[in-house]
Each structure stands twice: as C-alpha cells, then as structure tokens.
C-alpha cells in the first residue's frame, strides 16, 4: 500500500512523469514558436538544462522582503499541480474518482497563480507587486468563464461531479460543449500565462513581473511549476471536454489529443500581441463569460427537452 502510494506520488502520475512530460512540452512550446518565427530553436533537453542551471545558482533574498513568505511560496505551485496531475491521470486510466474531484482539481489549478501573486507581493519590489496585482486581476477575469464552461460539462454529463464520467464521453461533440470548450481553451491560455495574456510577466514592460527578485533554485521552482502546468492544464481540458484517454491504444490517442491542444495554444500565443489588463478583463467578462453562459443555457435546455446535440 505504502509502496503503491510512493510510486503514485514520485514515479508514474507523480513527479517523474509530470516533470518528464513537462520538459518535452516546454521544448515543444519553444520549438514551435521558433519554427513559426523561421528560426531553428533550442535542443530537446533545453528546459532540463535551464532547470539544472537554476538549481546550481546563488539564491538571493532581497533586502526588505518578507523572508519566510519569499522562501516558502514557490513550493505551492509544484505541489498543487502534482496533486492535480495525480487525480487527473488516475481518473482517466483507472477510472478511480471520488465525488467532487473536478471541484478539487479546479481549486488546485488556482494554486500556481496564487503562488505567483504571493511571491510577487513578498519580494518587496515595486515592479513585482505591480505584476502580482495584474496576475490577481487576471485570475478574477478568467475564473468565471472557466467555471461556467466546466459547469456546462457537468450539466451535459448528467450532474455527476466525477472526472471519470467526463472522460468516458466527448462533451465537446455538441453545440453547448463546443462553445464551452472554446471558452475554456481561452481561459487555459490565460492560466498558462501565454501571450496574449502574459500581462503579469510582461518582460518588455515590467521585466518578469512577480518573478523579478527571484533567482537560483526558487526561480527554478517557479519554472518547474510552469512545466507541470504545461502538462496538467491541457490534460484537464481533454479530460473534461474531449473524452480523455484510457489504457492501450487509448493512451496514444490521448497523447495525440494532448499535443493537438498544446499546439493550438502555442499558435494562439505566437500570432497575438499582448493585451492590456483592462482589455483582458473585458475580453473575459464580456466575451468568454457570455459564451460560457450561452453554452450553459443550451445544455440545460437540451437536457430538459431531450436533444443530445444541443
């Protein structure tokens, strides 16, 4: 039992698997971006080099920061995403699920963004607290449409709050499901901090934002958190909307869906300029949230009068 738990946490759906796939996904992001810009791009192990280098560097705690907060906060992101990844992967291939696991995952997915906010606030740099402020505003913007979209999927699948129920069917193969999928895809784009929603990092403007004072291993932890998010967030999307994956050939099919979703996110990233904070808020509240609401209404109406494709 204990051996099984250790295996779960550290090897297969846990640390080793999440980091490994995260490194490949991060390389894919940089390589596809490079190809779009007609460049060659980095070698395959580039994210691993970056992380190894960061863990070998000096760790500076800036004067005027809140030290304990500054040191502890970077751990929040990897821990939250690790738990989310274990729940998601096991719900897919073993169909083990508990009632309300989709809500737990939604909560866990906020942790990395929250870690960025707290880290920025505790480092005592005006630019980083500005970045933290922006990140908080972005969370307020994208959470509403994301929850509306997931609620649509819950209504569509008959009210069962279990991930295993979503992963056994294609929610996106209906009008309400397709609308909800588009809204959720945009929210995931913001949650990953990809352009056009990289408002909080904004390297040309506030120089890395909340992470500006972080160096060495602590910055490495934030990078690890981002690597894991590259696996977990698209996985959440395909589990809820695109039928997830199963064992055997199903795993390969799942991997193809994962890569396709990731490539769509990267292409959106590479073909858009950065939005301002107020523009992002308007986009999510007046654009994506009504889309999610329409999807929810369609799903409820479809359930009431019994039309499956609505």
């Amino acid at each position: 039992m204990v051996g099984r738990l250790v295996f779960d946490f550290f090897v297969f759906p846990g640390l080793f698997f999440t980091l490994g796939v995260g490194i490949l996904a991060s390389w894919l992001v940089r390589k596809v971006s490079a190809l779009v810009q007609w460049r060659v791009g980095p070698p395959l192990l580039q994210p691993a080099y970056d992380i190894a280098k960061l863990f070998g560097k000096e760790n500076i705690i800036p004067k005027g920061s809140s030290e304990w907060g500054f040191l502890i906060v970077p751990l929040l992101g990897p821990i939250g995403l690790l738990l989310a990844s274990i729940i998601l992967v096991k719900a897919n291939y073993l169909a083990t699920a508990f009632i309300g696991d989709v809500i737990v995952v939604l909560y866990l997915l906020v942790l990395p963004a929250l870690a960025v906010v707290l880290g920025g606030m505790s480092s005592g740099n005006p630019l980083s607290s500005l970045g933290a402020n922006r990140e908080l505003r972005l969370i307020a913007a994208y959470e509403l449409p994301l929850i509306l979209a997931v609620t649509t999927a819950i209504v569509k699948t008959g009210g069962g709050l279990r991930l295993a129920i979503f992963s056994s069917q294609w929610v996106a193969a209906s009008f309400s499901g397709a609308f909800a999928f588009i809204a959720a895809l945009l929210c995931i784009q913001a949650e990953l901090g990809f352009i056009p929603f990289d408002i909080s990092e904004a390297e040309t403007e506030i120089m890395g934002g909340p992470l500006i004072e972080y160096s060495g291993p602590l910055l490495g932890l934030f990078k690890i958190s981002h690597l894991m998010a590259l696996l977990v967030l698209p996985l959440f999307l395909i589990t809820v909307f695109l039928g997830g994956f199963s064992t055997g050939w199903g795993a390969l099919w799942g991997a193809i869906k994962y890569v396709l979703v990731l490539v769509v996110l990267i292409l959106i990233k590479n073909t858009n300029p950065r939005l301002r904070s107020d523009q992002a808020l308007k986009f999510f509240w007046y654009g994506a949230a009504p889309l999610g609401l329409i999807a929810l209404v369609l799903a409820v109406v479809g359930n009431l009068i019994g039309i499956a494709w609505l």
Partner: protein
Amino acid sequence: MTWTSWGISKSPWLYHVSTGSCNNCDIEVVDCLTPKFDVERFGGKLVGSPRHADVLMATGSMTRKSKPRFKRVLDAAAKPFIVAAVGTCASSEGIFHDAYNCVGPVRKVTKDVDEEILVVNIPGCPPRPEAIIEGLVNGLQKLKEVQQ
C-alpha cells in the same frame, strides 16, 4: 562533471547593460536573436532582471555616470555569472582612451567589485553577431571549467 555545471554552459540567459554605448553594439546584441543568428540554438534568451542572468552584456566605454549603476547590477546578479564586454569600447575603451568622462574598460570596474568575475572581451565596432555568439559560448565553457 557535477550536475550543477551540466546546465551552466548550455543555458546562457542574457541581460543587457548599457554602460554608455553609442547604441551600435546594442543593436548587434539584438541581432543575435533574429532568425539568421538565433542565439536560442544555444539556449540563450534575453531576460529582464539581473537576478535571472548568467551573462551580463556590457556595451559601451563605461562613463563616469554609468559606473555606479553597473556596480549595482553586478551586486544584484546571482553567482555564477560572466560579464561579456561587447565592442571595442567596452573591451579596451577604443577611441575613448584617456577621455575625461570615461573610467576605463569593463574589466577594470569588475576588478574593483570582485577579482574573480570572468570577463569575455568581444572586440569590434560593432562586433559581428557571429563574434558575439562565439564569445558567449567560449566564455561559458571557461566558466564551466572554473566551476569544476
């Protein structure tokens, strides 16, 4: 080879410090990022904060005004890092030798802060992007040897 020095030579994150340059070398530094030269092949990328940097690219002849600022950047950067003196002015002061407003090449200032900071001189007015990339790669190789 230890695991910490495994990554250092393959992931140079560049931070660009202008120490009073005429903007010519700055443009050549940006050229390294363009599709033709693509410094990301070697893992390089521009970062906004000296805390993240592995290579401080200093361009310019180190004017009196920029010296204290450059020292603060050196203090802020996380060790280990190297300093790349890009251009003739930064390497040896060039035509600004003995000028009243310049206080010597980059290496002289880094010696004041710490004797052991590695400085790579990349001469040229401006140096070609190929020369800058070669300087970076050689400098990081040297840093890796020092680490071991």
